[in-house]
């Protein structure tokens, strides 16, 4: 099949999938509401119970699922292309861990009880500090290895501080809440969360999308890309800054959700001819579809138990990761 045609087909199928999963997500929940009723209630302005459930509970959950998933898929694709490393993922830069630390500190200090929005705001601040540290460590134009190493060090430090907060947590309920929050979830999020996260995510998406051409040229390595007119400083700023804004916001409202940013670009890469620029929209759609599907599954598998989203994605993602290593080892031999 013609390559361009296949690419359009992949995007079309993914778009339809995302749309369908978005509707299914809206129709999934403990309250037994028929699909037609739920859709009608969504667009009516009456204040009955069904309308409230749809607009206040399910709609923000579905929107956040879509946006968080797209963020993870897009940033994973950008980072893999930028670092030319198929094992790169949004968590690699230490942004998720630092955002988590910010959020955990508000739970630990009790601020989040008095002022719930302090939690996502502190998480965003954590992401902001992380990007400053990573950029300062990476310094000049090229150094992708320093970015990876700085990210690992930052993740380890943020992880240690998070453990310290757990260690010293004032009471078991706070500790429990910290643990649950870190597992990642979209349960009980409101439109306020959407409005808080959306601007940062949109800004991040625009920055990440602007790296597309540079990522293609980087396929040939840093020197060749630079000689082709790629501004490496600008590309680094867009890739790291875009990841910080979008993944920071995603972590702020959903907690740390792993593996989607790693797996989705991998699954889709062969389908788009491996071109980094083409992978970006496909991976954003794929990430949205996968996160929406996972968030539907956690509600279907254990409706009573509040199964955490991050647990499910890690349970599916980790074996995939092992398979990936096994396969890359085989091709290296």
């Amino acid at each position, binding site marked *: 099949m013609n*390559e361009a045609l296949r690419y359009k087909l992949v995007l079309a199928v993914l778009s339809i999938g995302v749309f369908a999963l978005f509707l299914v997500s809206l129709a999934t929940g403990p309250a037994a509401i028929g699909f037609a009723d739920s859709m009608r209630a969504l667009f009516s302005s009456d204040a009955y119970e069904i309308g409230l459930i749809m607009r206040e509970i399910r709609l923000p959950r579905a929107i956040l699922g879509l946006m968080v998933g797209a963020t993870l898929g897009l940033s994973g694709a950008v980072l893999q292309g930028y670092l*030319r490393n198929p094992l790169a993922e949004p968590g690699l830069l230490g942004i998720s861990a630092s955002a988590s630390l910010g959020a955990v500190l508000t739970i630990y200090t009790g601020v989040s009880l008095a002022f719930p929005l302090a939690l996502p705001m502190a998480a965003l601040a954590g992401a902001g500090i992380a990007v400053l540290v990573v950029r300062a460590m990476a310094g000049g134009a090229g150094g992708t290895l320093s970015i990876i190493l700085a990210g690992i060090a930052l993740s380890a430090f943020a992880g240690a501080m998070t453990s310290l907060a757990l260690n010293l947590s004032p009471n078991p309920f706070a500790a429990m809440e910290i643990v649950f929050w870190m597992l990642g979830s979209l349960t009980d999020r409101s439109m306020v969360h959407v409005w808080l996260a959306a601007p940062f995510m949109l800004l991040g998406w625009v920055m990440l999308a602007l790296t*597309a*051409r540079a990522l*293609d*040229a*980087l*396929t*040939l*390595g840093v*020197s*060749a890309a*630079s*000689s*082709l*007119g*790629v*501004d490496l400083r600008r590309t680094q700023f867009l890739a790291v800054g875009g990841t910080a804004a979008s993944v920071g916001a995603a972590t702020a409202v959903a907690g740390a959700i792993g593996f989607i940013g790693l797996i989705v670009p991998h699954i889709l*890469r*062969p389908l788009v*001819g*491996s*071109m*980094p620029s083409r992978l970006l929209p496909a991976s954003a759609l794929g990430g949205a579809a996968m996160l929406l599907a996972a968030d539907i599954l956690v509600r279907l598998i254990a409706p009573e138990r509040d199964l955490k989203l991050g647990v499910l994605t890690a349970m599916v993602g980790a074996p995939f990761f092992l398979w990936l290593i096994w396969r890359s080892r085989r091709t290296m031999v």
Partner: protein
Amino acid sequence: MTLLAVSDLRASLGRRQVLRGVSFTVEEGEFVGLIGPNGAGKTTLLRAILGLSPSQGSVQIGGHERLKPREQAKIVSYLPQEREIAWPVTVERVVALGRAPHLPGFAVPGGEDQAAIQAAMARMEIESFAQRPATELSGGEQARVLIARALAQEAPLLLADEPAAGLDPAHQIALMKIFANLARDGSGVVACLHDLGLAARFCTRLIILEAGTIVADGPPRAVLTPERLRDTYGVASFLGEHEGGLIVQPFDLADHPGHGG
């Protein structure tokens, strides 16, 4: 027209001074072979010219100093020594990356770009595997794909770092002929070379770089003498004529390097 003018170029890697005041110019129609022993500073010189490595001194490309990256990429193309293709993209797409400097924003390649891509692939004889993933090719084939990428850029000046390494003799000679033809058509080519035979046979001019300074610059017959090869490389060489061309073949280590004779 002067494509490249380098004046008193100095560069350091860490504490080691790699370039100690290098000056030369490259005119249209010149195929310059940059030769010299390992560590002489050949790669650093090319990278400093392109602005990829920090340096002091002046570099004028196409008469301009410190061009914006995109504008520079329209005048000079670069073939790095490391042959990296990170993802299994098709050969044609790799070659098409050479058109990037000519495509503003999100513009898609047009007819002119397609023509340049096809011409570059034809020149490097890689059309037969145009649709195969470049990562599945042999090292020599990948090298030809990456050379085609640089040719597709259609810049009047080409800087190539050991372009012939890893190619079989037929493709080495074919590559040197392509570069010579580019020069004959009015381009400038500067290539780091280790094969003195190829350099002697096809370059219009040779520059010997040793310890960061130019020790010889001129036509191959003037630059390549047994004494100079002994001094520079520490080798004893056979130099002869065959069918009107210069033949250079190092055959042994010199007994007393540095004592020309």
